[in-house]
């Protein structure tokens, strides 16, 4: 089995990831805390002498309001799979009711990204053993899925929606067997025909989020609603922007009222000029908005809504807003790889996760909302009541998705981004 190394030979890392998941620690936080322990050991006498020293000590993460984790959704490693059913034979049985599924399924997903009991419930219902392999960043995920051009030995994965056109074109994922996924009807009307994958032929939307900004009201008591705040000289040296070219150009474009995802040179130059104007006010272009906001290094930062939910585990006071000018809406998907050894089980997995109650349980656990209209009744009311996680229809209409840039259009962004950063 090509995927064998993912599960067995890196037991230590898997254990580490489990611990991180249980404590809701990101890899960066883990490194930071190991660093803090090192300093604590080295500086113990000095720090002890200096009672005021506010050393960041490893504090137990409080559980999240709304999701309330009590234990982690741990991986269920399957015994090495025996010879699986021939996928070609299985796929040829295209009936309205799914044929007998394979005995195993290999899912490749983010940490803490599905409900606490989702895996166990799926295994109980279908008698399929799920092997749940985690990744911690999207670059690793894409490299793994593309390493053999057909999914790297995984059956199901969760790529960002912007990746779908490329994955389809390069034959990394396969079309869904929609007749085996009746729950696809549960998707809200907005999600039935997304621009990145017409009619959801090859993917099913999973969660969605926004890119706005967060701030610490202890430092900035104002009630902020506009992108202007990230250009406010009053916060000079305490502002952070995401280290992400498309997100930064989108933020500037919203502020200027320009079209998002523009590839027009004049419009991009206007956005660049605005970002050049902002740069002297910035502390950093951050790739750790969570750590920088919770440590107080930044007072206000461009941020993803999902990261904000995680910031509140450390500092519940931190606020987030979807700016009134509009914001980016991001989403990700569930897909089946073209090389999937267990395609029937994979389609059943997707159908299972589209079930109204399972989908709601996933959202309640992770704090991410999904596109599942039927799930709304069972989702935690606290999540739905938060206008920054579940914006009004008026606000929702102002959200725009990023597109996957390629070729000369991508170069336009990269050149300007490097000119800005250098």
């Amino acid at each position, binding site marked *: 089995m090509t995927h064998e190394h993912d599960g067995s030979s890196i037991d230590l890392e898997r254990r580490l990831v489990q611990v991180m998941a249980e404590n809701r620690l990101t890899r960066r936080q883990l*490194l*930071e805390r*190991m*660093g*803090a322990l*090192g*300093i604590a050991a080295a*500086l113990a006498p*000095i*720090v002890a002498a*200096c*009672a*005021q*020293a*506010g*050393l*960041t000590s490893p504090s137990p993460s409080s559980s999240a309001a709304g999701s309330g984790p009590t234990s982690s959704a741990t991986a269920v490693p399957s015994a090495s799979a025996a010879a699986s059913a021939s996928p070609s034979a299985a796929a040829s049985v295209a009936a309205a009711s799914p044929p007998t599924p394979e005995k195993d399924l290999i899912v490749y997903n983010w940490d803490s990204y599905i409900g606490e009991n989702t895996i166990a419930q799926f295994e109980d219902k279908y008698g399929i053993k799920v092997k749940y392999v985690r990744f911690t960043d999207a*670059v690793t995920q894409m490299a793994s899925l593309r390493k053999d051009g057909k999914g790297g030995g995984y059956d199901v994965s969760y790529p960002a929606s912007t990746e779908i056109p*490329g994955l389809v*074109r*390069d034959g990394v994922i396969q079309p869904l067997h929609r007749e085996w996924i009746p729950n696809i009807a549960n998707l809200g009307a907005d999600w039935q025909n997304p621009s990145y994958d017409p009619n959801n032929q090859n993917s099913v939307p999973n969660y969605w989020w926004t890119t706005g900004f967060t701030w610490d009201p202890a430092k900035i008591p104002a009630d902020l609603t506009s992108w202007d705040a990230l250009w406010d000289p009053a916060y000079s*040296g305490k502002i952070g*922007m995401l280290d*992400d*070219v*498309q997100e930064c150009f989108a933020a500037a474009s919203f502020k200027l009222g320009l079209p998002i995802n523009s590839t027009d040179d004049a419009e991009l130059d206007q956005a660049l000029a605005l970002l050049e104007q902002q*740069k*002297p006010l*910035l*502390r*950093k*272009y951050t790739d750790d908005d969570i750590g920088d906001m919770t*440590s*107080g*290094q930044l007072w206000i930062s461009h941020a993803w809504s999902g990261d904000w939910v995680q910031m509140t585990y450390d500092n519940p006071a931190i606020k987030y807003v979807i700016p009134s000018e509009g914001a980016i809406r991001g989403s990700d998907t569930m897909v089946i790889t073209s090389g999937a050894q267990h395609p029937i089980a994979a389609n059943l997995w997707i159908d299972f996760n589209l079930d109204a109650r399972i989908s709601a349980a996933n959202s309640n656990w992770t704090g991410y909302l999904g596109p599942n209209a039927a799930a709304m009744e069972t989702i935690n009311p606290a999540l739905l009541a938060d206008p920054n996680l579940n914006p009004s229809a008026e606000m929702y209409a102002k959200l725009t998705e990023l597109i996957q840039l*390629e*070729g*000369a259009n*991508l*170069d336009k*962004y*990269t*050149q300007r*981004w*490097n*000119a800005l*950063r*250098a």
Partner: protein
Amino acid sequence: MADLPLGERTVAAGAATDARPPGGPRRRSRLGGAFFVLPGIVWLGAFFLVPLAAILIVSLGTNDATGHIDLSVLNLRNYVQAIRPEYVPAFANSLRYAALTTVLSILIGYPIAYWISRYGGRRKVLLLILVMLPFWTSYLIRTYAWMIILRDNGVLNSMLQAVGLTSEPIALLNTDFSVVLGMTYGFLPFAILPLYVSIDRLDENLVQAARDLYASGRSAFLHVTLPLTMPGIIAAALLTFIPAIGDYVTPDLLGGAQTTTIAKVVQVIFTSGRDWPYGSALGFLLMVVTLGGTLLALRSLRRETFAA
């Protein structure tokens, strides 16, 4: 690999003229030498020359619209595009950080190496192990430790505020200061070790002789110790400057919005820009510039050292 044919040629010539019996002692030692060099050559070939050749070839290719590398037509277009005025500030930052790091590492490292060599006594080995001790912890974790020390709510600012030296936190992290500090911290052991070797090899009788001829301690150091340990200083400078100019991790983690280095520019081209041929060209060019500059500096240094 250059050694092997030479050895064979010598043996062949020897067999023809001297009529020495084949398999004599000379042959065995030559081939034996080549045999022992082989692992090193294989290592260099596999982990230096092959990757370098791969970068060079990729840099001559083109990127199609979907980000795939096309090597069917090789050309120099990426090199023509590589030099852009926008990159000058980032390159200047890299040069500045590397130069400061090198100077600081030698200024701090020389007294340490000198002290270990002259006053270390029986504990020399222990002291050298202490110099290398930080390597036992991952560089990434040590850099995160610096973040915790330097940030606005960090250890250093808390102590400064506690003793009343400042009322507001001083911006230490995400500045030039934190980048140079982190890099100097990281590269200091690479400076200390060659400095120690050259100082330790210095014959103390020479210094003693200078003192006997009424040189002051300062004068003996400037006219005897310093010139004779110059090779160690040059080695330390090379071992610090060359990796420092391409350092990506330290400026990225400890730096801020105003501290972009040329390594970051290359990283952006490779990752979000998805243009490996262009990134390879820029990277290769930087390597050539660094190497050329270093060789030029070495040559002029050597001329000066010998002229003196």
